[in-house]
């Protein structure tokens, strides 16, 4: 059924959260259906930039409002253009896209919700929606600009790591786990590849069920172009080779099913 479309959405509010990190609330139909860990494809209004920017969903009001928190990746980039928008501006999106985190797996368990860098934002909606035995949110930042900290504090027990040691544990999220002697039965994580590799190794060593959200350069965002694949351990039933589509089969994968 051809019932999906590119939607024109309106910016409700935009603010700067930290150096190069911006938050934007938009009014969109996608808000009602979005699950934690899904993303939206955001199109700039610049005709010379024709590919969408895949941006993770930070939170929604469950109805008409959706929040994205994104990093400006450089001068003249699409993300910079989004950072210059103001309330009332409009742009195109497609979404929600991707599979999202299987949050029902967390029921009755001790959970790690781990985010690093620009992988921090999608952890918020996950934390808001999750019901589990013990909700331990472990987020890593570069420095003391700990964006979304207040929101996390009201949604679980928060542990912070910073690369420069200015807040919380000095180091990364795994250092925070060790320093605080934390334990989990299930892990949900989003962040840069080195962080995800460390978490995957930790989960394997401790035989913990672990879901990681991957990032890859995308074109179509809907699973057709095969631009954004990752390597899968087993032959994938759709691709018929050891590749999975990050945009369509992911971005969230069981850590043991992908090679990262």
């Amino acid at each position: 059924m051809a019932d999906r479309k590119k939607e024109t959405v309106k910016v409700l509010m935009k603010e700067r959260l930290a150096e190069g990190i911006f938050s934007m609330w938009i009014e969109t139909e996608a808000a009602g259906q979005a699950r934690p860990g899904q993303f939206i494809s955001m199109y700039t209004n610049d005709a010379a930039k024709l590919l969408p920017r895949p941006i993770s969903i930070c939170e929604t009001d469950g109805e008409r409002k959706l929040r994205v928190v994104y990093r400006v990746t450089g001068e003249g980039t699409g993300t910079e253009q989004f950072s210059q928008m103001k309330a009332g501006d409009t742009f195109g999106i497609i979404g929600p896209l991707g599979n999202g985190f299987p949050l029902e797996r967390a029921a009755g368990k001790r959970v790690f919700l781990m985010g690093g860098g620009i992988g921090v934002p999608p952890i918020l909606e996950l934390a808001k929606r999750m019901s589990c035995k013990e909700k331990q949110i472990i987020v890593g930042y570069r420095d003391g600009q700990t964006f979304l900290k207040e929101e996390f504090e009201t949604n679980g027990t928060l542990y912070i790591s910073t690369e420069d040691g200015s807040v919380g544990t000095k180091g990364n999220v795994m250092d925070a786990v060790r320093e605080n002697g934390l334990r989990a039965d299930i892990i949900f994580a989003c962040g840069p590849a080195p962080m995800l590799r460390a978490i995957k190794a930790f989960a394997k060593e401790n035989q913990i069920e672990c879901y990681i959200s991957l990032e890859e350069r995308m074109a179509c965002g809907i699973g057709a172009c095969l631009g954004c694949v990752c390597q899968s351990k087993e032959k994938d039933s759709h691709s018929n080779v050891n590749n999975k589509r990050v945009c369509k089969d992911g971005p969230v994968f069981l850590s043991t099913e992908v090679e990262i």
Partner: protein
Amino acid sequence: MSAENKMECTAKNQAECAAGNQTERAVDMRVNIAGVEWKNPVTTASGTFGSGAEFAEFVDLGRLGAVTTKGVANVPWPGNPTPRVAECYGGMMNAVGLQNPGIDLFCRRDIPFLRQYDTKIIVNVCGRSERDYCEVAERLSGEDVDMLEINISCPNVKEGGIAFGQDPKAAEDITRAVKRYAKQPVIMKLSPNVTSIPEMAKAVEAGGADAVSLINTLTGMKIDIHRRQFVLANKTGGVSGPGIHPIAVRMVYEAAHAVKVPIIGMGGIASAEDAVEMILAGADAVSVGTANFHDPAVTVEIAEGIERYMQAYGFAKVSDMVGIVE
């Protein structure tokens, strides 16, 4: 002409709008490509549309003249390492490397899926050797598909692909070989990465091609100056999108003056205006590729826009417009 197809009068298009709405006559959108009748002249450029399943959520495939699938080989191909795609000014680059599930799964899953829709099925065929191409063509001869498009122009694979598409003799030979096995009309997809398009078009026509399609992507390169490394893992990739459109129009024009077989024009088509331009240059039909990534419903909008153009300027059928700008 139905009411919803009426042109909206704006300050910008007043003249054509008035002309169009006065004539009020039906236009015939059908085109005949090598004996296969499409309901309209719009298809999808191979590799940008998968086998249609993902786009079917956004666009009614039954409103397209044809769906051209992503290239399929005799066996599954894993494709290239990532990053496989990058944006460039007014376009993009890709080096997917023809990842595909192989002809067996394709026949089992993708053909029945597409057959649910009232559209023509064009299967793009890739291979590393003449034998690979022939094996797929032979396999498809027993399948319910309408046309084959032979990809001798992919710049992103080491063997096969473009190697057959840059030498006229090799292109002619592979066309002749594939024609021996194919039951359906054969479209040869040409590369722009050649010295002479007319020479290549004539070569595949001499080899028995029933139609030609062009252009595939132009080989490009992008360097990340901050990391001082190539953006694509493959170093080079195929450039596509609106930025290459004028090159494609020129090459379609050249091909149209070199061969008699029908031409499917593509390269940076992002609007009905781009499509009409391609038709006026000599294309019998058009393919829409990269623009699908900017708006998944763009193919149907282009088909509708071509119809409005024909109404506005009084063209009764698509073939009346083909190659009329000499």
